[in-house]
């Protein structure tokens, strides 16, 4: 069964680093130099270490960020929905320029990558509260109210969940009504091995996109002798275009919590942590409330659900603006109060994870699914989907379509069907699983979405993000946006990703300017492959994916971007640009 | 109709230069310019770098005379760690001198045999195909072998002390970081692998004799070609003798009167200014007390031989006396005599190298000395091409904050322009047809100064000097002072 720890385990002080930084950031608008000394002393580390943590996370700033800190989303979806106009309007209305605060220190304007509101673009966070479906008049209105002293909280939006589709015949797995404790009550009869068997039968796999068999992960953790153990929920939904976890946490917090408790029971863990991305601060209350409710019902804490000897508790740890912290081991580092740099595969998290102790990390959707599967039983679950890929999947659809939002589909649905359901508008280029996934052209619309991953099999495995672009969108613009994103989010610890993303971006510049030739295209492919094969974590491994795939699938388009006069010997060189600086000295 | 003659690039020199000659409607020379077209920006980008890496970095100013820059920078950096030239250990001082003489030997040999000899051997009207070292090797194999071997000898000396022939490392702040072994010294003395130092001296002597005969045969042409008055600048030792590594600065005018009286090199800023022209990246240094128009000086062998009272080695001294005996003048202002003067210096260097090679101090073990750090260092040395100035300033943390380089060839900027003008006026002007041979003479004039044009384009950086500004026409527009 489970634990038997006499003494309560205390997490080391440094694990509170991000929380302390958030306190300072939120109350003062930035981190003071004095704060750094204070924190260094508090955690017994050198000041440069504290500075290292602060400088890593996007939302921790060393300079004032204004009374109202505005983070405007610059994802590609925002871009096609009018980001530029909103940017201009914000600058005009606030008097600040992006990257600075205005003269009075009232407004700070900053850009930020996807904040999980792709179905409501253009969107922004003001003091970490959501403001969605922006247009110029709305922006003017908001700024006016803020100038009058309104708090961001009081005038923010409550983003709708936009659940557009569930399998007909009430076959939804995720959105069926869920009573807290309904699965915990089953645990009394179940054994950890039994739960693992159920999950194995259900073929549930990690819904963060890696699709690692969930039963395997929990099993590996279960057999670890070291104690204590941890259950961590990866709620760092950072892949642009993904917002399914946002909706789950808004609506189905209970099944998330229940799923974590089941995991704790199975592997023998006492502690659960939800790592919630900083962009979802506005959801924290809801989760806090849900956890409180579970406590009050005796479903969390000592002897959960009246199971003697099984204690489990959950706390929430806020992230601070870093896509790479969605990577398992980077997340663990962040939990430990450090920079979110992914670890090597020297040990896997199930063996040595959080604080070098056995840890299971799973996505929000995975925990929710686990709870639902145990509730309905694997056999029922297997009735959904297709053989080899049972069950349903949440897809977050956005872009050029009339009905952006959440689609719970049975595995096996074709791209064409999904495009029809969301009323896609002349789709041409579709990005599946976000920038780190793959791009498909409309010619591939007959492909199915499933977990089946065999050579020669043409199915697509989608992690959640599904971005649709019509024929009028510039493909290179999309790819450049992705490349910028990876460059911004790379953690910097390994050479191929840190330097590679920058190098690839330079190549894209050449392509954009019409200076590139076929050799450049070949080089992008070969260099992207090197990044894929050698990077330390998934970010570097997948950063060049879409680019490489797009160059094949949309080869005709890329050809139009090449230097038509390339003779194989003379590279195109912009002499005017190169001599521009010197020409300023012309008398 | 008026036209512009362009000679581009000037060949058989180091670096990039271009000559333009403007003719009016009648074919008379209106103007001529020797444009230096390179700009690399050493003085700016050296800032921010640590002083202990500087000698190795700045020697890459030039591939023919890296040693000059290495040693000048080393002298300046020595001062920054509190060591003046007299404070160096004997071993360090002598090793540096050996390297210096080796490189002057090599550089002069290179210039004479590889670059200038075609002009001397084949005459000003020789066809293009002949004007190169390959033709010399074919026509006069013996001479070519001598020249190549002499250069090789100098390069091998450099390699023995610095580890590499080009861009080696010998000097570190306050001294040197290696000595030379007995085997390496014997290599130059025993003649087994390469002709020994005595042979080098004999060959140098032979070349000096050759030049004397050459001048006897072509007296009028060589006496008159590009002869013009100018100052001469160089270094002398305490007794007024020729000094190439460390001494005092002396300048004389075209008649031999002293214009700069054996001043310490540390005071160079008080005496020199540099002017800027619109049409060249290289600046124009001159002595402040005389002024822009007449205050510029020639540097290099011609100047050094002119202003020294004697040469401290016997054979070279004899050669010097014969040289002045030949001209009968106190000071020699004829451009093409540079070659002869250069060969006298070759002989001098060979003699100096011999005495150093036989000096046991070379193998000593006192290599580096330390003093009290300073924030400023100045190193002035006589490079093969003339007086070379390196001046660095650092902050307390060791970062270079300011750098000033006056490279030898910069001093010769006015001289070369004047020489070009002379040829333009006397050979090209109003001649109707301009032949290739005439244009060749322009280059022959420039080449006599053995210009190192890549080096010379360092004319940037903060200078605590007075600067005067001239417009395109050479009219003084303004002058400013900054200390």
């Amino acid at each position, binding site marked *: 069964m489970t634990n038997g720890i006499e003494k309560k385990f205390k997490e080391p002080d440094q694990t509170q680093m991000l929380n302390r930084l958030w306190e300072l950031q939120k109350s003062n608008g930035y981190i003071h130099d004095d704060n750094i000394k204070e924190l260094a002393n508090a955690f017994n580390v050198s000041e440069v270490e504290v500075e290292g943590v602060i400088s890593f996370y996007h939302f921790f700033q060393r300079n004032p960020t204004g009374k109202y800190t505005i983070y405007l989303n610059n994802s590609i979806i925002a871009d096609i929905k009018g980001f530029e106009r909103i940017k201009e309007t914000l600058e005009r209305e606030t008097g600040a320029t992006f990257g600075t605060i205005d003269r009075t220190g009232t407004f700070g304007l900053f850009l930020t990558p996807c904040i999980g509101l792709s179905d409501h673009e253009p969107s922004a966070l003001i003091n970490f509260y959501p403001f969605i479906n922006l247009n110029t008049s709305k922006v003017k209105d908001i700024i006016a109210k803020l100038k009058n002293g309104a708090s961001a909280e009081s005038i923010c939006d409550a983003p709708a969940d936009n659940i557009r589709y569930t399998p007909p015949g009430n076959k939804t797995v995720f959105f069926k009504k869920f009573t807290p404790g309904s699965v915990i009550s089953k645990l009394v009869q179940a054994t950890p091995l039994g739960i693992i068997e159920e999950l194995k039968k259900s073929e549930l796999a990690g819904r963060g996109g890696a699709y690692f068999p969930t039963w395997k992960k929990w099993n590996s953790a279960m057999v670890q002798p070291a104690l204590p153990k941890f259950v961590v929920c990866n709620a760092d939904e950072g892949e642009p275009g993904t917002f399914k976890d946002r909706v789950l946490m808004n609506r189905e917090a209970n099944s998330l919590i229940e799923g974590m408790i089941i995991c704790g029971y199975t592997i023998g863990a006492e502690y659960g942590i939800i790592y919630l991305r900083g962009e979802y601060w506005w959801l924290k209350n809801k989760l806090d409330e849900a956890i409180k409710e579970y406590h009050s019902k005796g479903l969390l804490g000592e002897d959960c659900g009246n199971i003697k000897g099984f204690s489990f508790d959950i706390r929430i740890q806020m992230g601070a603006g870093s896509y790479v912290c969605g990577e398992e081991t980077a997340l663990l580092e962040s939990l430990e109060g450090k920079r979110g740099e992914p670890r090597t595969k020297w040990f896997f998290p199930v063996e040595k994870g959080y604080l070098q102790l056995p840890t299971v990390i799973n996505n929000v959707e995975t925990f929710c699914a686990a709870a639902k599967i145990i509730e309905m039983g694997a056999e029922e679950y297997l009735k959904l989907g297709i053989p080899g890929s049972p069950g349903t999947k949440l897809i977050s659809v956005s872009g050029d379509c009339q009905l952006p939002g959440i689609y719970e589909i049975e595995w096996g649905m074709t791209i064409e069907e999904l495009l029809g359901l969301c009323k896609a508008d002349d789709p041409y280029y579709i990005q599946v699983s976000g920038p780190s996934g793959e791009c498909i052209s409309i010619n591939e619309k007959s492909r199915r979405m499933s977990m089946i991953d065999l050579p020669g099999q043409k199915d697509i495995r989608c992690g959640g993000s599904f971005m649709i672009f019509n024929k009028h969108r510039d493909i290179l613009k999309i790819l450049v946006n992705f490349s910028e994103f990876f460059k911004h989010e790379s953690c910097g610890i390994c050479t191929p990703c840190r330097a590679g*993303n920058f*190098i690839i971006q330079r190549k894209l510049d050449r392509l954009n300017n019409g200076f590139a030739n076929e050799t450049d295209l070949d080089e992008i492919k070969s260099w992207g492959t090197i990044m894929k094969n*050698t990077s330390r974590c998934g970010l570097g491994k997948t950063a060049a994916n879409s680019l490489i795939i797009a160059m094949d699938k949309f080869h005709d388009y890329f050809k139009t971007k090449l230097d038509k006069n390339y003779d194989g010997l003379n590279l195109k060189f912009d002499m005017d640009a190169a001599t521009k600086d010197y020409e300023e000295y012309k008398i | 109709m008026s036209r512009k003659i362009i000679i581009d690039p000037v060949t058989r020199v180091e670096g990039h230069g271009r000559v333009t000659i403007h003719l009016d409607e009648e074919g008379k020379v209106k103007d001529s310019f020797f444009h230096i077209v390179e700009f690399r920006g050493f003085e700016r980008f050296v800032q921010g770098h640590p002083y202990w890496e500087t000698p190795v970095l700045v020697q890459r100013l030039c591939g023919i005379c890296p040693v000059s820059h290495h040693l000048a920078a080393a002298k300046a950096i020595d001062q920054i760690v509190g060591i003046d030239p007299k404070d160096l250990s004997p071993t360090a001082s002598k090793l540096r001198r050996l390297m210096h003489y080796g490189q002057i030997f090599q550089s002069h040999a290179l210039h004479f045999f590889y670059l200038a000899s075609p002009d001397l051997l084949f005459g000003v009207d020789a066809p293009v195909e002949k004007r190169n070292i390959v033709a010399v090797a074919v026509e006069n194999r013996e001479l070519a072998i001598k020249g190549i071997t002499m250069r090789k000898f100098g390069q091998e000396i450099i390699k023995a002390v610095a580890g590499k022939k080009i861009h080696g490392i010998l000097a570190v702040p306050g001294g040197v970081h290696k000595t030379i072994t007995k085997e390496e010294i014997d290599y130059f003395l025993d003649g087994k692998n390469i002709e020994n130092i005595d042979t080098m001296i004999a060959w140098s002597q032979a070349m000096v004799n050759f030049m004397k005969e050459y001048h006897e045969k072509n007296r009028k042409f060589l006496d008159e070609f590009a002869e013009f008055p100018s100052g001469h600048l160089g270094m002398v030792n305490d007794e007024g003798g020729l000094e190439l590594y460390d001494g005092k600065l002396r300048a004389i005018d075209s008649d031999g009167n002293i214009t700069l009286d054996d001043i310490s090199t540390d005071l160079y800023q008080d005496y020199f200014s540099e002017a800027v022209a619109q049409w060249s990246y290289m600046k124009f240094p001159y002595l402040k007390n005389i002024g822009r128009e007449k205050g510029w000086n020639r540097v290099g062998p011609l100047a050094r031989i002119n202003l020294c009272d004697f040469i401290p080695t016997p054979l070279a001294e004899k050669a010097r006396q014969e040289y002045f005996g030949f001209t009968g003048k106190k000071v020699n202002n004829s451009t093409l005599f540079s070659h002869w003067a250069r060969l006298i210096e070759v002989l001098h260097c060979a003699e100096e190298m011999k005495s150093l090679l036989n000096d046991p101090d070379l193998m000593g073990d006192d290599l580096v000395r330390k003093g009290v750090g300073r924030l400023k260092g100045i190193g002035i040395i006589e490079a093969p091409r003339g007086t070379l100035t390196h001046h660095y300033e650092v902050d307390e943390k060791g970062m270079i904050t300011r750098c000033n380089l006056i490279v030898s060839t910069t001093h010769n900027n006015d001289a070369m322009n004047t020489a070009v003008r002379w040829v333009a006026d006397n050979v090209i002007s109003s001649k109707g047809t301009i032949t290739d041979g005439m244009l060749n003479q322009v280059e022959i004039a420039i080449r006599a100064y053995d210009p190192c044009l890549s080096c010379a384009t360092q004319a*940037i950086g903060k200078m605590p000097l007075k*600067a005067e500004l001239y417009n*395109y026409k050479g009219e003084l527009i303004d002058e400013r002072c900054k200390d």
Partner: protein
Amino acid sequence: MVNITIDGKNFLAEEGKNLMQVAKENDIFIPSLCYYEHIEPPLGTCRVCICKINGRFGPACTEKVKEGLTVEVNNPELKDTRKALVEMTFAEGNHLCPACVKSGNCDLQHMGYELGISSTRFQHLFKDRTIDYKANRIVMEHNRCIKCLRCVVEVVTDDGKKVFTYQNRGFETYVGVDYEQEAKLTEEQAVNAMKICPTGAIMLRGVSIPEPFGHRKFDMESVQKNYNDETIKPNGPTAITKKRIATISLAGCFGCHMSMLDIDLGLLDLIELVSFDKSPLTDKKNFTERCDLGIIEGGCCNDENVETLKKFRENCDVLIALGECSVWGGLPTLRNSIPLSECLDEAYLNCVTNEPANNIVPYHEDLPKILDRVYACNEIVKIDYYIPGCPPDAGIIWKSVKNILWGEKNPILYSEFKYD
């Protein structure tokens, strides 16, 4: 003991031992920059030791040997990938070997030599980075840091505080120094910090080049049993006919040309086999005939350099970039992170006080225009071969030329293949 396979050969090894160590013990060379035996878990930051482990790409340094492990080290794709990573490291920083105290003792340079890297396939990025002089003894040269993480992990004060930590992230990552903690380091600890840094990024104030050429750690001998330089692949045997060569020094210091002349008396034999067309050594100012070979020294720093380079491409069958300056830009690129206007202003405007109206910067119809930065030759035209060095030794130059012109195979020695 367990059985493992490396490149098809069987080996016995201690179970759980690091694959890198096992390879080393069996004389199999796997290059790496950040692997240090005593650091556990291994740093795994450079990714240079990439191999195929049980069919999948993975670094050798984080692999613990177990029964049945199958490793591929030396297939062409892996070799090229490893080379690419070292090249990427060079291109990312501003690594100027000629001017660096660590040259000859530098791990990055060493890998470059072992892998025969004469040029990088990546354009150098020339990011503007500073040199941090603020600490007590340590001077941090950020241009050279390869972010191996070693100093972060190993340099710790006696009371357990870190002296170095990464700051920022992604391409902006750099190693921050804690001045307060650094001051607490003993002399020995500071010297150790300099020693453990694989490149010349951590320097000690005032400490200059320790050993002369030829006596430094990586100067003379390769660590590989069969060092095989494959950088210059010959064109194939051709009859020994007289060839035409053209040479030029663009923005170079002329040192490479001088090094060409260092064949000394060999020149007399050479001129039987080649004739020189346009070259600073001849008076041919323009191409008179098409040339078999063009040798380019120096990178491009003004518009005329670019035009000249293009002319060379037009008139020569094969182009060699000779020396660091033409290969990637070399020493003149030290100005690449400084705006041109700053260079010119400092030279001609700021050396006097005020009155900008009266100050001139040289600008003239007969002067070439200076480019905004220094460009490597392969950014302008296709370059066929690269010979590294500053300057390259005469031996490597002429061996390569003979290889290219007549297919003569002359292996280039490890001791000849140098960057400084």
